[in-house]
């Protein structure tokens, strides 16, 4: 009783932010302590990557209400364009045993900074183009169209062998500096976290929420819904691609199956749902928690740890649809409105017009509220 009222108070919110600040400060000084070995920094960098991808997924999936099942495509595209611009191949002469380094991919052999920036900008443009087409679709249709995009882009990359290296992939100039990558990721995630906090308060972010709650209503209020949601989607793709490019550089090689792996989407969706969809801190806390849970499970059950992920997804969706954030904020209806976009048209007669019904949101709010009470 007292705990719940405390968790809902502004003081709890301040405490939460203070803890976050403390966590960031702790992570910043970590490489200087004796815990910060290269292996640990590498693991933490991967955690920061998954947090970054989840924050970006939340901008489309949580704020705008478009649940993207193919978000890994932007990560992979960023990784691949960066690699194509930077790729080299080392050839060993069989007679003289001399190594020659040749530019591979697009044959440009750029440095990492311009390559990652160009890769991310290109991905942002692609996201704008694809989003312009797929964001016409609603609910499950959008989700599956994005899953299709992921599968199709992966195959396109596999087919375009002259510039992508086909199924074998590309090699990048090796550069191992764990602390540097760690700090870059930490700064990026902090900047992105603060940016989403600002976005949530800004007029643009409010427009996104308006689109999520009632797209036609938002349009009637004079919001250019298409430009707004496509801009958010494009930013989300751009920002994910930055993490993709960094990942490719750190990994020193890419191939289609690992760059476009579905698990990355699953992690982003699951992490965000775990933390609380449509909130600022949710994807950060959720992805961090999920990452460590996976590490623990992976160490214990190497072969079967992904099965637990499936079980966790089912349990979360059925019994804790608001995630961790639902424990703090019992007023929110953000999830209910995302859910409502997906409400099946069961009770419509076959010749019903496709115009939305004003009352259709109400029962959905009820179901989610009831299920959430069970969780708290």
């Amino acid at each position, binding site marked *: 009783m007292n705990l719940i009222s405390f968790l809902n108070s502004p003081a709890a919110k301040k405490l939460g932010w203070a803890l976050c600040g403390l966590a960031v400060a702790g992570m910043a000084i970590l490489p200087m302590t004796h815990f910060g070995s290269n292996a640990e920094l590498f693991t933490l960098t991967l955690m920061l990557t998954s947090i970054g991808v989840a924050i970006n997924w939340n901008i489309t999936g949580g704020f705008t209400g478009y649940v993207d099942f193919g978000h890994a495509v932007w990560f992979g595209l960023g990784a691949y364009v960066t690699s194509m611009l930077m790729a080299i191949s080392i050839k060993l002469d069989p007679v003289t045993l001399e190594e020659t380094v040749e530019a591979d991919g697009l044959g440009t052999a750029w440095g990492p900074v311009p390559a990652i920036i160009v890769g991310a900008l290109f991905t942002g443009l692609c996201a704008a183009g694809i989003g312009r087409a797929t964001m*016409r679709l609603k*609910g499950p249709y959008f989700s599956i169209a994005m899953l*299709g995009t992921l599968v199709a882009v992966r195959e396109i990359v596999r087919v375009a062998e002259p510039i992508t290296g086909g199924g074998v992939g590309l090699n990048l100039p090796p550069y191992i500096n764990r602390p540097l990558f760690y700090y870059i990721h930490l700064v990026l995630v902090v900047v992105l976290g603060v940016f989403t906090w600002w976005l949530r308060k800004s007029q643009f972010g409010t427009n996104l929420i308006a689109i999520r709650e009632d797209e036609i209503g938002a349009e009637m209020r004079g919001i250019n819904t298409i430009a707004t949601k496509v801009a958010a989607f494009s930013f989300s793709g751009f920002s994910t691609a930055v993490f993709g490019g960094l990942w490719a550089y750190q990994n020193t090689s890419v191939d289609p199956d690992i760059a476009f792996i579905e698990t990355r989407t699953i992690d982003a969706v699951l992490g965000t749902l775990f933390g609380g969809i449509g909130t600022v801190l949710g994807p950060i806390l959720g992805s961090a928690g999920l990452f460590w849970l996976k590490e623990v499970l992976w160490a214990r059950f190497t072969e079967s740890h992904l099965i637990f992920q*499936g079980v*966790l*997804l089912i349990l979360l969706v059925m019994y804790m649809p608001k995630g961790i954030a639902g424990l703090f904020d019992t007023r929110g209806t953000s999830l209910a409105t995302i859910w409502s976009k997906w409400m*099946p048209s*069961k009770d419509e007669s076959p010749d019903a017009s496709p115009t939305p019904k004003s009352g259709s949101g109400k029962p959905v709010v009820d179901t989610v509220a009831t299920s959430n009470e069970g969780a708290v």
Partner: protein
Amino acid sequence: MDQFLQALINGVALGGMYAILVLGFSVIWGVMGVINFAHGEFVMLGAYMAWLANNQLGVDPFLSAPFIFVLMMGIGYLLQLLLVNRVIDRPHLVSLLVMFGVSIIMANGLKLIFSADFRRADSSLRGAYDLTDNITLPVTKTAVFFIALAVLGGLSLFLQSTRLGKSIRAAAQNREAAQIVGININKVYAITFALCIGITGLAGALISPILSIAPFQGPPLTLRAFAVTAMAGLGSVKGALGGAIVLGLIEATVAVYVSGIGTNLAIIASFVILVVALVVRPQGLFGGLRPVDATAS
């Protein structure tokens, strides 16, 4: 000309195979409003059962298929009882995410049991029959095509003329009204789900001599099922056949005329069809059990 005829034959045969592959997905969505994200994994489960029977006992997949149908119906019924029934009243996203969880569990479970190696069952119906000097008829796919026609016809007849079939259609069109006239909706859903999972497992058994089976081969099949359903309309048996043949023809044409990378392009083709069909004609090409509009909020 020969090349064109060959593409036509391959396409129609492939289309028949896709028709039986997507039927269960389409009907579950049409009747229950559940998007079975684990559809491809159920196909794989059926295919692995057929492979196991073939590998251990030497049974031909075409002979073990009816038994797999019954077994998979049981699995479908249990899953409906334990899981799907609990989320059926919730919005699409909930059931879709739950089925997404099921697909993760199934794919990794299959990997744990059967390893990630590619498998293929042996059937006595194999090889190619020479129609003319340059045109061949793929024997296994043709057999699957005719079985698919029989299953589709049977299901259609079941939905049109039996009392149970009529209650399934009624439940798809208007759930409340169906309940008012005394249809036990839970029973109808349980039967529909069991039947569709059974058909999906049957399809898996039938394709086990044709496609290589591996635990993570499910998602491309789910994607194709979605493409065909989006093209055809929800729960439409005729539409499933029509849409599947269109997809089969496109894939076969691409594979015949583009050598080497045709199979990769085929997946790209099914995605392009999906998005174009959804954007251009969101209500589907054929009338289904339930109206669909992909752009309505």
